[in-house]
């Protein structure tokens, strides 16, 4: 039962073939059996979940306020606030933090009647590409336990891939939804910046962060996005534009769809296995009647540099709030205020977070601001313009989601730059604010390969359509 998608389970729930409580219990049984190996969750909320499932069953029985998510078990990334439940960001500095409010996304999930199973592991404060930077535990890739699940939403991706949840929320600052989706063989969508409220998402890099769905197929991703999306007065960067009916965009007719293949992401640095899977996917699109062309976005050469100046700069500012005063860890070795700050932050933050705080502080500091931060903001303009130009001639752009399949645990842990370079295909999308989805499109040695499909700002419909058409004509999403 638990290997089914949310839309399949919804059918069973409304036909009363299963109950929500029964489904939740099955998920917790699964968690009990595989979680000791996978370690996707930081916190499990079984008692709450069963109560939510009972409430969902009541809604289903009375046929009142039934949504597509009513009674569906879902995992929440542990950087989204949940009232009365730990929100740790996988950091020692927040290990005991209990949020006094729900993130807007969590409120919406609750209102829809979904069943929240628990909070999933991530790279500390979402900084990383492997979930190895978690300050609490290491999550394994369900497809190969010696490999990373990707990151930073590695716990969410692993939970869905291992059937420890039917759906999950993720956040994506430089690829943190799409890359773990790719590594775990599932679907992950980063919406347009401003499409989903960030209220209650613990900020990493505010101009890049966006919340989105992780799911087993494109239909489920569309269903979860539908619930998450929309203007929120509590997030001044959420955009007040109508939210379309995403399921309506799920059609298989893509005749004439203009697909641009990004030249810069099909060359050097992309592994042969990945390249060949992407080429086959492009061929499939051609068969389905899409019009393929090659596009060049020369500014991509500078994307990694740009991102790794802007994101740490914003992070260094956002993380200034963790000072041991109002919440979280406080060092016991403090003789005055300044040593309290010093020691609290030294004890509470892990290596990658410290590295980025230093890098970001440096890029913003007097004498270096123009040379690093301002320069990066200018190159961001070029990246945005390159996308605009390419997307004026194409409906969608495609590339690999990641240059390689999931790498081994520990393989890149001591070389931050090589870890950063593995984000080359995903970070330009965040810099430009546009939406993108990763879907399974191949395998190499039984490890999944992801196809990234990018679209115009606020046009999630077209990338969903392109993704759906591919999925319905292939069976990569069914491979386990």
């Amino acid at each position, binding site marked *: 039962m638990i290997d089914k998608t949310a839309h399949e389970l919804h059918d069973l729930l409304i036909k009363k073939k299963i109950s929500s409580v029964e489904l939740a219990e099955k998920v917790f049984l699964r968690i009990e059996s595989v979680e000791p190996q996978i370690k996707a969750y930081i916190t499990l909320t079984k008692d709450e979940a069963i109560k939510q499932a009972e409430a969902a069953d009541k809604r289903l029985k009375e046929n009142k306020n039934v949504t597509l998510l009513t009674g569906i078990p879902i995992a929440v990334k542990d950087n989204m606030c949940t*009232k*009365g439940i730990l929100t740790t960001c996988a950091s020692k500095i927040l290990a*005991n*933090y*209990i949020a*006094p*409010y729900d993130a807007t996304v969590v409120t919406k999930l609750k209102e829809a009647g979904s069943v929240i199973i628990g909070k999933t592991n991530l790279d500390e404060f979402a900084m990383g590409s492997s979930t190895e930077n978690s300050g609490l535990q290491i999550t394994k890739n369900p497809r190969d336990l010696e490999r990373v699940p990707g990151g930073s939403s590695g716990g969410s991706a692993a939970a869905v891939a291992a059937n420890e949840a039917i759906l999950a929320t993720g956040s994506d600052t430089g690829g943190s939804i799409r890359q773990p989706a790719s590594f775990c063989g599932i679907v992950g969508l980063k919406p*347009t*910046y401003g499409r989903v409220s960030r209220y209650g998402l613990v900020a990493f890099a505010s*101009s890049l962060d966006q919340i989105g769905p992780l799911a087993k197929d494109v239909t489920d991703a569309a269903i979860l996005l539908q619930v998450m999306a929309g203007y929120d*007065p509590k997030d*001044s*960067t959420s*955009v007040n534009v109508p939210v379309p009916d995403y399921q309506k965009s799920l059609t298989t007719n893509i005749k004439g769809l203009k697909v641009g293949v990004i030249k810069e992401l099909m060359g050097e640095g992309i592994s042969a296995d990945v390249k060949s899977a992407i080429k086959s996917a492009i061929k499939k699109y051609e068969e389905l009647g899409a019009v393929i062309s090659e596009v060049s976005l020369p500014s991509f*050469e*500078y994307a990694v*540099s*740009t991102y*790794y*100046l802007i994101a740490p700069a914003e992070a*260094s500012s956002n993380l*200034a709030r963790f000072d041991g*005063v*109002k*919440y*979280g*860890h*406080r060092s016991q070795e*403090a003789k*005055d*205020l300044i*040593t*309290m700050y*010093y020691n609290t*932050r*030294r004890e509470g*933050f892990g290596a990658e977070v*410290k*590295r980025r*705080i*230093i*890098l970001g*502080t*440096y890029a913003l500091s007097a004498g270096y601001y123009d040379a*690093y931060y301002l*320069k*990066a*903001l*200018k*190159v*961001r*303009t070029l990246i*945005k313009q390159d996308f605009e130009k390419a997307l004026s001639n194409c409906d969608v752009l495609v590339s690999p989601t990641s240059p390689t399949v999931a790498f081994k645990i520990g393989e890149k842990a001591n070389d*931050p*730059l090589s870890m*950063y370079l593995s984000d080359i295909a995903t970070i330009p999308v965040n*810099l*430009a*604010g546009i939406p993108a989805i990763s879907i399974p499109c191949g395998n190499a040695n039984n490890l999944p390969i992801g196809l990234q499909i990018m679209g115009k*700002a606020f046009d999630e419909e077209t990338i969903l359509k392109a993704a759906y058409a591919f999925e319905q004509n292939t069976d990569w999403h069914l491979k386990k």
Partner: protein
Amino acid sequence: MEINIEHVAHLARLGLSDEEKKTFSKQLGNILQYAENLNKLDISDISPTSHAILMENVMRDDKVEKCQDIESIMKNGPEIEENMFKVPRIME
């Protein structure tokens, strides 16, 4: 490329061990050296983008609303006294 780690860590109020200072110095040097590639571009005429999507100021009515309950906020405080956060003495 050499960062004055000591100075930057002080700006960030971030305590680092000697080991960390050494490792970060090297790693951040590598990263900044990589970022030198931005110097190949002529961007003197380009305006900076701080937000990819056009942002405008959002105003709301200035009216009194109930705030989150104080108790659950204070509960997270490492050291509190009568709804106040206690910190080490600031002045002698």
